[in-house]
């Protein structure tokens, strides 16, 4: 599958459109607030359009995962190519982009969420130029992570995200923003340096024949790393189920687990969410969290099948902890936003559980849950944002009876809440159900235990709904206004997606199925294959 615009691959466009937007924004004088807003909106919208084109042209029957042939919209250029010196093999780093069923939904999600984040940032006034510039930079970073198939490239994008995020939370955030920002930064950096080491170890263990020169060279190509045949005998990560391989997997796992976040690495999340401005929370929950699980699917599982299988149960157990623990913590919160934050801890747990099932339904369920959680939680945060803009408080007990005061708002809210609860007919149900169905086949009791999460979720969601929307309206909120067109514009698309995917999940599932199956077979199949000889 190919799609070029002006002889430049569509993925490159997708990734670097925001950068162009950033440049434009930076060139605009900072008085031109509307101009700045509109530029960013236009560029993100373009991104969405491209994403839709890709989604439409995407060939559902190709698997991708570990075969370069079936990767779609490939772009492969030599980026760094150090001529070999006698004592040091030549260093080759490729600019290698491509997507398959695992990344396609994420690409779409990223474009969509970024666009919505821009819309929801309309009301930002404080040094807006910098804000949108950083937002667009962040967008590029996120998109890049999902499309790059070269580990080095992946890592660069992965890190590029950090700084914008730090500033977006730190400058435009709430009262304790500094704390939250630095916490986020340090946590993620800690994770990513471990990732770096694992990456280097892989680099030296894997080598392929360089088509150009015919010599054997090390490579950062993820797909090459997935092929046991490419491991040099005697290198650090050769062999199967060796201590080094386990260590490397754990390093990678921690790197990603911090992003997900998996208990006990989750404590940055509530702070970050509570302090971040709405749009940033949306991006954080909508896209950033997915990178962790995506990373596990793209790198952790296929490159370390043996370790993955070896640590399958612990993984599932962590998923279980996330589900129950997150739900219970959410139940005890007094702050609306913090509650949603913990709820996403719980929901990401379902993704983990589904992945750990290591069978088709589980994997597909996990992937779909990634997408759905992206849309649903985004809605939830937007909903919090809407009320916060009006009331300037997020205390759950400060509200009540909004249902009468803001009917349109409450309508959308209903969809979001019940989607989060996992009500059939809305997208949340499908993914949760599959994750559990899949997991049950692998971990019987663990899944049964985790399933209690759906009761807890219903518990805290409905409790929140009751406290905020039902009952009688306190005097002080008599002048609250219902949501305006702009806010609807950002909520409605998500709501539609939620409903449509609830009824026709195939729209997404068809994209994922083949890749998911391949991934599962790959991990299960090559778990025992000795690498390096």
């Amino acid at each position, binding site marked *: 599958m190919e799609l070029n615009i002006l002889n430049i691959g569509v993925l490159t466009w997708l990734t670097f459109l925001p950068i162009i937007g950033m440049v434009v924004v930076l060139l605009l004088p900072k008085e031109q607030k509307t101009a700045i807003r509109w530029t960013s909106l236009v560029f993100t919208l373009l991104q969405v359009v491209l994403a839709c084109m890709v989604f439409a042209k995407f060939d559902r029957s190709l698997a991708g995962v570990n075969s370069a042939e079936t990767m779609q919209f490939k772009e492969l250029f030599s980026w760094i190519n150090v001529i070999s010196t006698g004592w040091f093999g030549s260093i080759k780093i490729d600019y290698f982009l491509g997507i398959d069923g695992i990344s396609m939904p994420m690409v779409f999600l990223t474009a969509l969420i970024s666009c919505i984040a821009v819309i929801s940032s309309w009301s930002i006034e404080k040094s807006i130029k910098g804000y949108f510039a950083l937002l667009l930079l962040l967008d590029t970073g996120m998109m890049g992570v999902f499309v790059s198939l070269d580990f080095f490239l992946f890592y660069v994008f992965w890190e590029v995200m950090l700084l914008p995020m730090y500033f977006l939370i730190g400058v435009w955030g709430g009262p304790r923003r500094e704390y939250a920002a630095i916490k986020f930064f340090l946590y993620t950096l800690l994770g990513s340096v471990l990732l770096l080491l694992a990456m280097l170890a892989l680099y030296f263990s894997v080598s392929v024949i360089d088509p150009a020169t015919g010599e054997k060279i090390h490579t950062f190509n993820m797909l090459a790393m997935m092929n046991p045949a490419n491991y040099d005998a005697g290198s650090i990560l050769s062999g199967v189920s060796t201590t080094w391989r386990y260590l490397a997997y754990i390093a990678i796992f921690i790197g990603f687990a911090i992003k997900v976040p998996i208990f*006990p690495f989750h404590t940055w999340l509530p702070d970050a969410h509570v302090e971040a401005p709405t749009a940033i929370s949306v991006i954080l929950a909508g896209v950033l969290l997915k990178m962790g699980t995506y990373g596990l699917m793209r790198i952790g599982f296929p490159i370390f099948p043996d370790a993955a299988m070896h640590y399958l149960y612990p993984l599932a157990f962590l998923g279980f902890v996330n589900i129950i623990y997150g739900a219970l*913590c959410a139940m005890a919160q007094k702050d609306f936003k913090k509650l949603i934050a913990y709820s996403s801890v719980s929901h990401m747990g379902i993704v983990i559980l589904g992945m750990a099932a290591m069978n088709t339904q589980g994997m597909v369920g996990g992937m779909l849950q990634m997408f759905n959680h992206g849309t649903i939680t985004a809605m939830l945060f937007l909903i919090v944002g809407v009320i916060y803009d009006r009331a300037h408080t997020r205390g759950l007990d400060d509200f009540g*009876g909004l249902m009468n005061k803001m009917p349109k708002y409450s309508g959308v809210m209903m969809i979001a809440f019940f989607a989060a609860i996992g009500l059939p007919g809305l997208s949340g149900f499908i993914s949760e159900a599959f994750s559990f169905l899949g997991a049950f*086949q692998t971990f019987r009791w663990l899944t049964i235990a985790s399933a209690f999460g759906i009761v807890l979720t219903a518990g805290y969601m409905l409790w929140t709904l009751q406290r905020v929307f039902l009952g009688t309206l306190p005097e002080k909120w008599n002048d609250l206004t219902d949501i305006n067109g702009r806010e609807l514009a950002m909520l409605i698309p998500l709501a539609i997606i939620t409903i449509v995917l609830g009824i026709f999940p195939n729209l997404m599932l068809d994209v994922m199925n083949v890749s998911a199956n391949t991934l599962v077979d790959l991990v299960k199949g090559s778990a025992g294959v000795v690498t390096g000889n």
Partner: protein
Amino acid sequence: MIPELNIALAILFLPLVSFLLLIFFGKRFLNRSGHIATTFLGIDLILAFFLFFSKLATEAVWDITVTWIDFHTMVNNIPLKLDIGIMVDNLTTVMLVVVTLISFLVHVFSLAYMKDDVRYSRYYANLGIFTFSMLGIVVTNNYLLMYVFWELVGLSSYLLIGHWYEKKSASDAAKKAFIVNRVGDLGFFIGIMIVWMQYSTLTFHGIFTAIGSGVLPYDSNAWLTAAGLLIFCGAIGKSAQFPLHVWLPDAMEGPTPVSALIHAATMVAAGVYLVARTFPMLTADALMVIAYFGAVTSFIAATIAIVQNDIKKILAYSTVSQLGYMVMGLGVGAFSAGVMHLVTHAAFKAGLFLASGSVIYAMHRALHHLNDHHTDAQDVRSMGGLKSKMPVTFWTMTMFTLAISGVPLTSGFLSKDEILAGTLAYSHFTGHSLIPIVGFLVAGLTAFYMFRMLILTFMGEHKDAHRFEHIHESPKAIIIPLMVLATFSFFAFFSLNPISASQGWFFEKISYPAVVVPEKLAATPTEEFVEEIHHQHTMAMALSVGVSGLGILIAFITYFWKKISADAFERMLKPLHTFLYRKWFFDELYDATVVAGTVGLARLLAWFDNTIIDGIVNGAAWLTKIVSVISGKFDTLVVDGMVNFTAFFTGMMGQTVQKVQTGKVQTYMIFAIIGFMVLLALYI
């Protein structure tokens, strides 16, 4: 595609259309929305009857299955995909008629009852979505869609119970209903997981054939039983069986017609329907457990109903009790009787609720007229003597009461004593003699408390003469549905033989499904069982008539002729009375254990999360303190734990190192030399 299935689909989706119409354009229609919705339901009802008759004419089962999701992969050599579809058999058609009929009548009833409600069109919209999902449960042919609609009725019941959500009690009740149901559904879902794991299909047909061919989950009988019981958990939730019955009485916070439709006739019966659908794969053990659940439920509810004073509460508990009855019936194996009781009960219980609605309506108007806001319009003690004022309501009510008490010539009598016969047969085969005992006991109790209610409400003289002036019969929209339902409470509609249903069309059409569980696990073979029922029938009939007669008699003695003072009894058995009045303290128990437990755990964990987990990371509060004590500049620096911990650790190091950095150049040299020594020492 069979044409009839198109009709079925039409029946299914018409209410949804009305829902969508009203939800989006409700504001436009204003008070016309009621009529619109009612029209839709009218059409629905006609179609339902049409389908009913055309189906009963044939033996075929109309079934269609489509692939919803295809995973493009094989699991043990069968392609892994998720099939959904709809199916119309006799049971379905009967249920279709019941649902549409009651729903239609309630729509009509509400035209008057909800006339000047604040969210009139929203109310009708919600009725629409409810009817849709209820019909969905009935027509689907697989557990997945079943579960989907199962949750959807949960949602609509949530919306309708919480219709007057300004009232805290209402929103509480709604929440309670949803969550308690979720607990049941959890079991249901786990059951589904087991089935899916084993058979990779969720259609009834597929599963049953697989079981029939001897494939068991995990190759174990226990797991088959477990699967059955877990699916039954769904019924426990929806049909308010012990121990999850607590939500139903609270659900009475919703508008009375809603209670009639959802919490008496249809939704709560869905559980029974589920058991009926699952019947073929239920093992003997499973059935026994189910029977006991039913028995216990019906007994507890009946005892509670005796002492309640709120008219709707009484009906609510009687509903729970009757549902227990049906479940018990199915449990013991009296399949047709159980289902039949479902149908008959739907009619007269809906009637009872609507009638009580009519009474409440009248009371309200009276109280409103006198703007008296203290008196509870639903308390039977503040009623009495309404007979003369609202004759139609009274007579219909009486009809329903007779039906539920199982007096001959009523529909209730037929179904009820078939169930009792079933219990007798069951105890004969298995020796579980407790079941029939409870059965008859409950029959008597039912008769007693129902008549208590009837007498207190309509007979004697009214408590407040002045108010009595202002009570009038309800408008047509209210009483017509009552009449219709009253007619349906006669035996003739179910069996031409007034004393035995077993020769009626119902038993012929709704016959025992083929049991698929392996021989050694199955309950008593159907033929022998039916045979035995015939033996027990007369006996059962005699007994049931006797006990209910006795119940009625006591009721009259106590409350009509006042030969025995109820209050005296009450005083004598104070503890017992409170125990019953407070509903066996179930709510208190749950609040104290489950709810408090969960919330407490949540608080604990949240604390744990903030202090310990974040603490380990966050270097905990005290650590931070120490650190900040060590040097003032710290506070700005203390950012986060792990680092913070390092920071603290570093604080120490940093301090020492800084101490070293004295500014005295010779000290530096000394350290250099020490370093030199150390390095040297490494090699010597």
